[in-house]
């Protein structure tokens, strides 16, 4: 990953040069790499390591939403769905792996009175297959939903509402106990990760480092992407889709491609998140959580990938701290923060710094 950045630094031409001009992203990538190295050399208390890893997973999720909302003007209120797809497949892999090694069936399978894992779990104990399945599934769901929506030009708030209904439907479905995916209790009690006992300091550190490295890679990769011609087309599509279409570009294909990419990145975040918290349940699919992702992006700075990362880390860091210190006050602080950002800082907290390489006043985000 640092390779990509080095390439960008070494060859200041074309899209890569624009990446260099984004010191925020470069700084964040460097920070991620430094934090990963720091964790490996001198790991702090495990709970801090774990919190850092979770923050990195949330940041990846925020980047995935910023990619479609900030750069394409599509506000998805259903990104929790893709996050959950990644999370559920990851949980299935962990349980199947546990069964393959220890032979003990997970609790919820025993509760349902089944003698073995359901048939469609076959092969999930192999990590590469599970990874491919999670990404493919998220991509497929995104493709079907996106194709149907973008072809019939559903956009703006309509798209937001329908995507919210989609995640709500998924939540209702997953609350059923007969899906074979744990029902309302979800899945938990993962015994092993690649043969290592879950929760041991090494695994915790490893997961956090993996999340940080992935974040760095995603951040650098998406920054490179939005620096290319495709990125400029995305901005054009956000600001005036009709004109771009009139100019002969297929906006449907553009939107569909970026939408599926975003869904897969969100699934990756889910994959990294679930082993760190040790549980997945349908509450991940609650519409509120999906709105919250949009809140992170809006608070950090819509339309700038670094802003999404900062927003996710800031809001979730505050949440970790405050929901322990004063749980009553947290919702008020969050709603106050949202209103403040929305009313006073239209480009998010980055407005405070006054750092603005390219004005991204969102006149286009209809």
């Amino acid at each position, binding site marked *: 990953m640092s390779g990509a950045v080095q390439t960008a630094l070494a060859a200041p031409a074309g899209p890569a040069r624009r990446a260099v001009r984004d010191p925020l992203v470069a700084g964040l990538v460097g920070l991620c790499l430094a934090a990963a190295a720091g964790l490996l050399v001198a790991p702090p208390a495990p709970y801090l390591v774990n919190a850092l890893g979770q923050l990195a997973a949330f940041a990846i999720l925020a980047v995935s939403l910023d990619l479609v909302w900030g750069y394409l003007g599509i506000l998805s209120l259903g990104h929790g769905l893709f996050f959950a797809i990644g999370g559920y497949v990851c949980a299935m892999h962990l349980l199947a792996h546990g069964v393959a090694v220890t032979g003990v069936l997970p609790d919820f399978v025993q509760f349902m009175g089944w003698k073995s894992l359901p048939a469609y779990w076959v092969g999930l104990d192999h990590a590469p297959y599970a990874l491919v399945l999670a990404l493919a599934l998220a991509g497929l769901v995104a493709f079907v939903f996106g194709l149907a929506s973008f072809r019939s030009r559903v956009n703006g*708030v309509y798209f937001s509402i329908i995507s919210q209904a989609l995640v709500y439907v998924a939540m209702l479905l997953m609350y059923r106990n007969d899906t074979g995916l744990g029902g309302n209790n979800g899945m938990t009690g993962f015994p092993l990760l690649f043969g290592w006992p879950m929760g041991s300091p090494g695994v915790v550190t490893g997961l956090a480092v993996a999340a940080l490295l992935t974040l760095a890679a995603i951040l650098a990769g998406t920054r490179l992407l939005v620096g290319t011609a495709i990125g400029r087309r995305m901005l054009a599509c956000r600001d005036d889709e009709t004109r771009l279409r009139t100019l002969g570009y297929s906006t449907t294909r553009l939107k569909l491609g970026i939408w599926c990419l975003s869904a897969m990145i969100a699934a990756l975040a889910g994959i990294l998140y679930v082993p760190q918290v040790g549980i997945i349940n349908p509450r991940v699919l609650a519409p509120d959580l999906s709105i919250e992702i949009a809140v992170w992006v809006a608070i950090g700075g819509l339309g700038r990938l670094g802003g999404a990362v900062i927003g996710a880390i800031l809001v979730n860091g505050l949440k970790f701290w405050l929901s322990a210190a004063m749980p009553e006050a947290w919702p008020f602080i969050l709603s106050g923060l*949202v209103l403040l950002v929305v009313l006073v800082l239209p480009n998010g907290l980055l407005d405070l710094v006054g750092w603005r390489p390219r004005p991204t006043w969102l006149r286009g985000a209809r």
Partner: protein
Amino acid sequence: MADPLRALLALLCCLALLTVPAAAAPLDRARFAADLCGDGAAQVRGAEGLVQAGGDLPADDLAFAGGLLGALAERRLSCPADGALLLDRPDAPEGHDAFTGAVRPAAAARAPILGLRQRAAVETARGTVALLTGPDPAARAAGLAVVERRIATVPAAVLDRARDAETDAGLKATITGLAQAAALSSPDPARRRAAIAAVAVSPSGAAQARLAALKNDPAYAADPAFRTALDTGLATVSRAVAIGDGLAVVYNGLSFASILFMAAAGLAIIFGLMGVINLAQGEFIMLGAYATYGVQEAFRRLAPGLLDLYLLAAIPVAFGAVALVGIGVEALILRHLYRRPLMSLLATWAVSLFLVNLVRVTVGTQNLQFVMPAYVSGGVPLYADFVMTWNRLFAIAFAAATLVLTLLILRRTPLGLDIRAVTQNRDMAACLGLPTRRIDRLAFGLGSGLAGLAGVALCPIYSVNPGMGSGFIVDSFMVVVLGGVGSLIGTLVAALGVGGANVLIEPISGAVAAKVIVLVGIILFLQRRPEGLFAVRRRR
């Protein structure tokens, strides 16, 4: 349709003739007392005779018999040579004469003993008396429970009389069912056929099951008249039950749809006018319900006598209070965000988060307790198994009134004209001198007020707590989008459609699956027609 009706009428007449009470033959009291004082066979004869005659006996005879039977069962009966004495407790030295009431010594008298074999007959007779003359439903229900154990020995006249005299609806239904069951299993073929016809007159799911069970009866194969009667009766009952169930589905769908409509109507106006997704609409509904609670508490403190009227008094209060909150939100926040609808969506989400937690902190998370006035509790059984419950009727009527009023406001008032103008073409309306910002604010107040009204309508049906609003938001947005933005009629049609579909699918595949199927159906439909069912033509 005329023939079955005529047949029903004829049947009713026949039944009426059958149940006309014969001239009440008084009880031979002396003989009855002598029987109870006699040996076991006499006791059984007396008790069973009473049960057989029970349907025709005058009330005072029944009371007399009841006293004697009770005394016998509790060993308080004493039998001197001339008549019977009722003691206050077993082995008391003296007692009241059963005929005259005079106090007499019981020293020389014989105390009859109730044997185990006779006890069943005597208890049935006591139960019959209690069923017919019990002072309160509980006593009559206890009597019925005793009678039920030996129902074969009880004549139909007793049960008919008890049913006709019964005032408690639940007990009446139990007696009816029992009488039907007893008649259906009676050994007399004519009586069985009459019973089948009688069951067919008052159809219900229970009656259908009872008749269907008779198909396994040997008489069904053996007796052609019985088979014809049963088949006809069963067909009548099945049809009536199907109609009743259909009515119930329509009614439930209508009430669900009216709640959806109430929740979505305000959204439709706000969304149609300003393109603002108000995610706080569910919380406005919650505030309306809490305002209703406030009105109830105020009535409880200030005018306890008028407490039943609080629900009506809450209507203007909830509308006004929530409309004010809405206008405040608009003036403080949304006014700045008209050019950025996605940001206004986040802002209203923040408002909803704030409101939920504000109520949670100040009032608490528990469900609120509401007094249910008479006009929203209970219901009236209309046809077969279909019971029209008042609380749902209240919601339906409320929604209908809201619809009419809102349509009147939109179609017949200057404000409505302005709202429609701005909805259709904001810039042109502004050019013509309409104060669009002021209209926005008033319309937002109207939309919020409608949510407050929905809160009032929900109080008798749903549990009211700070989180109640979140359950509505997805459904009501689907209704608004499906109906077509800015079209109140579209919202109504969509609400009816979604409510009906939910209720229709629910018995087939369960509540969750019904919701999933309906939402997926809407999502698919919107891919084909993104502008909804009734799109308002507009220029932007």
